[in-house]
């Protein structure tokens, strides 16, 4: 049965990836679109035709098997063995297929990318990848197949519409082929990027799908599984293996000529590894203005020597152009990604706290910048010149100190504010609201106790968890207990407040039914010190799940009541942006941050709801179709992490710059009531604000560009403080300097945030075009002004932007920028919101997931295995891969995964025995298991969101979801492959240069 599901799915016939696919069907699993790339070759005639039935249930009996062999019509070279398995002819009922093996198999069409890659290979091979170390490095881990890009053709382009492709003329498959017999009637969508589907090199090996029932694991007879590989291969393998590991059975001779070796195009993995190799594990001292820090993926120890650690601030470029003309010419965004509360590893020194007592921080009289290493002391130390506005200020008497022979204060190294990039000041009353010291902060837990949450056990889970979690609410290190007060509210169609005052014998519940005009019904006993009220709180938490349990018993009787409850909730949370907007503003004005945990089983309008957490510096967590046994741990981890993380309240951030440029735009979980003050009801260690700068005037190479970010906030104990981060950048009038100093990860962070911000007011298509154009423009400018002359057909990338195209392509493919009916609006809104507050490391992982070959694990080493590129061609059916993007984690199991690994990890005898219905790996006392779990732990560490683990077996339904994250391949829901995009950008560049 297993297969049938897929088989039946409609989309087979579609040429277009993603078109009409509805994810739940997993129909596209075998989506021919990939295989059948537009080159036309793919559309195998007959068989495909059959598939063209598009599925939706053509009633007919399954067509006969033959179709499985797709033809590579287009390719003259004809890769013999390729079969594009056509979509299984039949889309019908599973039962019919059951017996029908071949058809079943066909459902796994070849991996998309492979085919296209090969072709591109041919196109791109000509390109020069600037400074890419190994250039066309031999495929170390790449697919065996495609060796060389022998034939460099100009880019073979299928008739490609909107996207630019160089040399479309050349290649392929006449469109006609597309319409070949049986070709799907579907029109090609315009945006379909390339039509390249070269004969896949060793392609994916999708083996015939095993037997029916396989998906179900249980029913699958083990022996069959074992054999299936080989058998299939023989029987029907349609895809010549493309996987590094598994080409064995693939007879396919390496695909010859015309392909661009995927290994020849810049590899993010290579870039990361190179940086790690050269800078990892070292000490990075921030003593030099404009020096480029190691990549976010590189571990090193950072020593603050006058500039803020890159953990706090990362810039898109560490060298600003001197003039705005130059900036316009390069079109490189000038931005900083600031994560003011970033976690500092224990081996680096924490921020110093400066306390000037009642006089407060020393500030420039004119621009109000805080004392920092950029202030120049003159006149024997009596005055100082502000590095930001050049104003000369008197040194306050209490702060006077003599200067040494090089004009430095004698106490330079004693005062953090003179020698460090980051430090904190104790704020005086002037910095408090209404000049009154702030109250200690409070956490209010609001729990939805409506029917479904009670029924699925969520409420009980939360209440149980809170009991232990409340012990861990953040406190100052020197304090015995936390100053944070806690309060509890539950709600369904009405609100319930709880009085948990310590002297009560039992908690008191106060119901507020007037949801139209909510008020707080009690004063005393709502917010309490947890330690003092512990017994009452525990009493309450014990009772809450039972208190609302009644509804369970009367499911039918109370169904209407629940309905009414939901209605009421809708009224309460009416999806009107204005309501949330003003609510959020009120929250910020009162220093109230809202974090939302959503457990939607249907549309809840995340876009509107999410506004509140976003504008108030809170966090949005979403667990679709929450199932206790699967999602419990993820939720609990998030909840714990959220409560325990370092956080500052009621914050205002101000970014000051030296003359000549200024901060013009801000992106993040923030609220701005004017153009300079960034207000955040709370800011935690994971939230970053991206700031864009523009020129006001000319910058001088001598003085550089200085940035000071000051965050005024309230600590968890209720102390008002200022956190200052200073960073000095270089300036240059040479474009080459600018390009040399760029950091792609930060660029992508900026592009993502600005694009995601724009989705609210601009059409997606426009946004995508702008991104592509700007990418091309940046690269073209480099080519024109910085690179040595070369053939026009060459693609030349600056070293610092080598991986910009692949990352940019990942961004373009993100569901936020691709509106597809398959992706819920809620999901898009959710991801959009997450990205808006991400720091550089998180956005890097989010857009380019980490893919680790677990089968290569060296159980004796504590090193992580080297990551591989996110492409299907890197998978092998003998392999086990772990993929993580910061939100999701997948463990992908090839059908021929080594049994000892399976035994080691899952403690079951064979592939078929693995139950994929788990989100935690079993704890097996085995080095494989231990090592893998440790790796997962390392990956999860420091990530703001707990990643839910999904076990994916090759060729089973969930693989579809997994494949979305193979970002170098053509997207399931649209979006081109890396190679295609590179071609596209290349073409754009060519046009710009002409």
């Amino acid at each position: 049965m297993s297969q049938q599901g897929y088989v039946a799915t409609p989309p087979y016939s579609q040429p277009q990836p993603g078109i009409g696919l509805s994810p739940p069907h997993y129909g596209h699993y075998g989506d021919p679109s990939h295989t059948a790339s537009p080159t036309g070759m793919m559309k195998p005639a007959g068989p495909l035709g059959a598939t063209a039935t598009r599925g939706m249930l053509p009633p007919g009996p399954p067509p006969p098997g033959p179709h499985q062999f797709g033809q590579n019509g287009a390719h003259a070279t004809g890769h013999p063995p390729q079969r594009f398995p056509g979509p299984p002819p039949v889309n019908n009922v599973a039962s019919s297929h059951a017996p029908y093996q071949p058809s079943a198999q066909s459902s796994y069409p070849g991996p998309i990318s492979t085919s296209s890659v090969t072709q591109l290979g041919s196109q791109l091979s000509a390109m020069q990848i600037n400074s890419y170390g190994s250039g066309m490095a031999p495929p170390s881990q790449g697919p065996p197949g495609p060796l060389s890009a022998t034939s460099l053709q100009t880019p073979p382009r299928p008739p490609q519409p909107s996207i630019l492709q160089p040399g479309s003329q050349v290649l392929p498959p006449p469109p006609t082929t597309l319409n070949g017999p049986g070709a799907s009637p579907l029109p090609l969508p315009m945006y379909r990027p390339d039509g390249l589907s070269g004969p896949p090199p060793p392609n994916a090996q999708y083996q015939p799908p095993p037997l029916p029932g396989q998906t179900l694991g249980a029913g699958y007879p083990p022996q069959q599984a074992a054999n299936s590989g080989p058998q299939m291969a023989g029987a029907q393998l349609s895809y010549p293996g493309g996987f590094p590991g598994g080409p064995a059975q693939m007879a396919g001779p390496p695909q010859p000529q015309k392909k661009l070796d995927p290994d020849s195009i810049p590899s993010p993995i290579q870039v990361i590894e190179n940086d790690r190799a050269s800078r990892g594990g070292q000490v990075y001292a921030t003593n030099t203005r404009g020096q480029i820090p190691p990549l976010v993926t590189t571990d090193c120890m950072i020593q603050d020597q006058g500039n803020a650690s890159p953990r706090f601030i990362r810039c898109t470029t560490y060298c600003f152009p001197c003039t705005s003309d130059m900036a316009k010419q390069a079109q490189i965004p000038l931005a900083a990604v600031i994560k003011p509360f970033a976690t500092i590893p224990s081996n680096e020194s924490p921020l110093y706290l400066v306390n000037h007592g009642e006089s407060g921080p020393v500030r420039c009289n004119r621009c109000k910048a805080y004392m920092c290493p950029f202030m120049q002391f003159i006149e024997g130390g009596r005055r100082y010149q502000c590095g930001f506005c050049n104003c000369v200020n008197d040194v306050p008497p209490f702060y006077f100190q003599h200067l040494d022979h090089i004009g430095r204060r004698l106490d330079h190294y004693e005062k953090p504010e003179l020698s460090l990039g980051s430090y904190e000041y104790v704020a005086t009353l002037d910095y408090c609201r209404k000049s009154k010291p702030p109250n200690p902060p409070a956490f209010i837990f609001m729990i939805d106790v409506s029917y479904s949450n009670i029924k699925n056990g969520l409420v009980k889970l939360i209440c149980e968890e809170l009991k232990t979690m409340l012990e861990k609410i953040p406190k100052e290190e020197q304090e015995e207990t936390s100053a944070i007060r806690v309060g509890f509210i539950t709600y369904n169609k009405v609100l319930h407040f709880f009085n948990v005052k310590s002297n009560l014998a039992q908690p008191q519940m106060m119901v507020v039914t007037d949801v139209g005009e909510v008020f707080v019904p009690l004063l005393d006993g709502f917010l309490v010190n947890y330690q003092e009220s512990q017994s009452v709180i525990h009493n309450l938490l014990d009772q809450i799940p039972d208190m609302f349990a009644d509804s369970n018993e009367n499911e039918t009787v109370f169904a209407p009541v629940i309905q009414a409850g939901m209605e009421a909730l809708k009224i309460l949370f009416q999806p009107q942006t204005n309501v949330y907007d003003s609510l959020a503003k009120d929250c910020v004005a009162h220093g109230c941050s809202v974090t939302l945990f959503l457990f939607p089983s249907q549309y809840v309008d995340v876009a509107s709801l999410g506004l509140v957490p976003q504008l108030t510096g809170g966090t949005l967590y979403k667990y679709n179709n929450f199932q206790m046994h699967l999602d419990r741990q993820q939720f609990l981890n998030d909840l714990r992490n959220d409560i325990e993380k370092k956080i500052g309240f009621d914050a205002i951030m101000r970014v000051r710059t030296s003359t000549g440029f200024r901060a013009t735009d801000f992106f993040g979980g923030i609220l701005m009531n004017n153009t300079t003050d960034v207000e955040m009801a709370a800011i935690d260690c994971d939230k970053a604000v991206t700031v864009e700068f523009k020129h006001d005037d000319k910058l001088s190479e001598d003085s550089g560009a200085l940035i000071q970010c000051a965050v005024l906030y309230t600590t968890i104990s209720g102390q008002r403080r200022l956190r200052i981060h200073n960073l000095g950048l270089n300036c240059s009038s040479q474009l080459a300097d600018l390009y040399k100093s760029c950091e792609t990860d930060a660029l992508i962070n900026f592009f993502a945030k600005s694009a995601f911000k724009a989705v609210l007011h601009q059409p997606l298509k426009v946004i995508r075009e702008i991104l592509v154009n700007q990418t091309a423009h940046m690269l073209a400018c480099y080519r024109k002004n910085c690179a040595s002359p070369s053939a026009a057909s060459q693609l030349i990338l600056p070293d610092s932007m080598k991986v910009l195209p692949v990352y940019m392509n990942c961004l373009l493919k993100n569901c936020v920028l691709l509106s597809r009916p398959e992706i819920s609006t809620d999901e898009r809104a959710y991801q959009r919101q997450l990205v808006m507050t991400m720091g550089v490391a998180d956005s890097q992982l989010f857009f380019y997931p980490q893919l680790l070959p677990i089968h290569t694990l060296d159980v004796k080493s504590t090193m992580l295995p080297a990551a591989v590129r996110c492409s299907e061609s890197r998978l092998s059916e003998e392999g086990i891969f772990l993929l993580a993007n910061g939100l999701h984690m997948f463990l992908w199991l090839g059908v021929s995964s080594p049994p000892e690994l399976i035994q080691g990890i899952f403690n079951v005898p064979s592939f078929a025995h693995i139950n994929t219905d788990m989100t935690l790996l079993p704890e097996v006392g085995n080095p494989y298991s231990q090592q893998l779990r440790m790796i997962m732990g390392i990956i999860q560490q420091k990530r703001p969101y707990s990643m839910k683990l999904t076990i994916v077996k090759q060729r089973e339904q969930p693989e579809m979801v997994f494949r979305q994250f193979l970002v170098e391949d053509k997207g399931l829901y649209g979006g081109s492959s890396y190679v295609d995009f590179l071609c596209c950008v290349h073409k754009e560049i060519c046009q710009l240069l002409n």
Partner: protein
Amino acid sequence: MATYLEFIQQNEERDGVRFSWNVWPSSRLEATRMVVPLACLLTPLKERPDLPPVQYEPVLCSRPTCKAVLNPLCQVDYRAKLWACNFCFQRNQFPPAYGGISEVNQPAELMPQFSTIEYVIQRGAQSPLIFLYVVDTCLEEDDLQALKESLQMSLSLLPPDALVGLITFGRMVQVHELSCEGISKSYVFRGTKDLTAKQIQDMLGLTKPAMPMQQARPAQPQEHPFASSRFLQPVHKIDMNLTDLLGELQRDPWPVTQGKRPLRSTGVALSIAVGLLEGTFPNTGARIMLFTGGPPTQGPGMVVGDELKIPIRSWHDIEKDNARFMKKATKHYEMLANRTAANGHCIDIYACALDQTGLLEMKCCANLTGGYMVMGDSFNTSLFKQTFQRIFTKDFNGDFRMAFGATLDVKTSRELKIAGAIGPCVSLNVKGPCVSENELGVGGTSQWKICGLDPTSTLGIYFEVVNQFMFHLRRSPFLQVFNNSPDESSYYRHHFARQDLTQSLIMIQPILYSYSFHGPPEPVLLDSSSILADRILLMDTFFQIVIYLGETIAQWRKAGYQDMPEYENFKHLLQAPLDDAQEILQARFPMPRYINTEHGGSQARFLLSKVNPSQTHNNLYAWGQETGAPILTDDVSLQVFMDHLKKLAVSSAC
């Protein structure tokens, strides 16, 4: 005369009826000359321990417009088994059950001694009584504590199956759910927002969910009580819970800044109480018992703002039309009172505070529904504690001395018409031939609804007056507002309107007894001349019991003569008025203020303000004589009043 007086007293004793005239005027002309209208005071539930229980239903006249009850005055034809209605003259057949009727075998209702009879009607399910406590938490700690104790104590006095509920209010209003274990749960309402009955019921979850009819569920009759029982629970089930709940009641926690009154949402609290009962138990016996320690200061029904510098309205303000909130508040409470009366529930008001609490505005709540109104200085006084306790006293049968949901139906023969009733009732708007065009009191109907009544509740029309009496009536707080707050006036009038003749007479003209060595205690003139040094006076004004020791007596007592064995008679003399006062205190509802004072004591003012000022500082001729005590007042004395009256009578005769 003596026989006549006896006759009248006997009638009153037996039927609870007392007429202003005991002889009908023979003609209309005569009737118009009577000046004092023909009226009676009726005490419907006058206690009659001697009445046998009659366990069947009354026989009614078969004429649909009449339906008079078979009574001893009806003509009966025993042979034909017929009776003639003495109101409409309809001839009625006796029901089959009366088959054995004869001159010697008469049902009770035909016997002359049963001119008053009580039928025990067996129809219908007995529904439990409901007591809904509405408690102000803006009280001083002592007061709240005392009130909590009284309330806790009261639980033991309720019948075990009675339903109780609790609403507390201050700045907000909390409706407490009583059925929950382990957590005390309450529904909270803003004190400033007026809610309709529907909204209240929705918010309390009392409305049955509109069932989409997809599943025709079997009707669940018990569902209704279930829903309402969250707030109203049988005492026997939750008395422990409720005792604890009351014990944990805290003063309203919202801060009251200097110069402000606490925010007290009496209007909303009462509105919610009314709405709660309206939705769950319409037309059953229910008491809403409002305990308040101050004026409503916010929301609908507010009587005064929270600024302490602006005092609560006085008669002076009202005359000057300067009572900002009075009209609106009165309207609010009238609306509530009318709704409550329509539901057959009653509202008691227990207002204990030194300042006014807004009884003037709230009075209709008690007046229209037959509820009690009790005013005191503090909940921590025996006046309140004992009065409250007295509400739950039982009669000789062990039944509560309270009744609910009465309909008073007055029928007259053709020669008489009904002009109206005055008392704790509302009109049922039943017009008939016997209803007069002229209205007096609540008129235009022959039926009234009395939501709550007790054995002393008396309705009446007019009262008999004599000259001396009129003098005191003019001085009484019923007509005279001087020196009384609007609240006090409302309070006195409330009680005046529902007491029987004797009690209301006491209210108008207090009784004064004198105790001395000269003989047994004797009633003396309510005159300043009665205040003598060697007397002990006992004054009963209904609302106050004052014991006053004359100057000499007071000196003796100070000297401790009462403790000397040889002066035991003095001790007895001192004790006698105390015992008598105690007797009055035991029976009276509400419990009177008990004042024990002496010559020159500050509390003596209670006595001095009541007596006829025959001697004042203006007619000093009596100074120095043993003829009583002069009263420092400008009020006219009875003598002056009588002289004036005589002059008027003579001149008007001309």
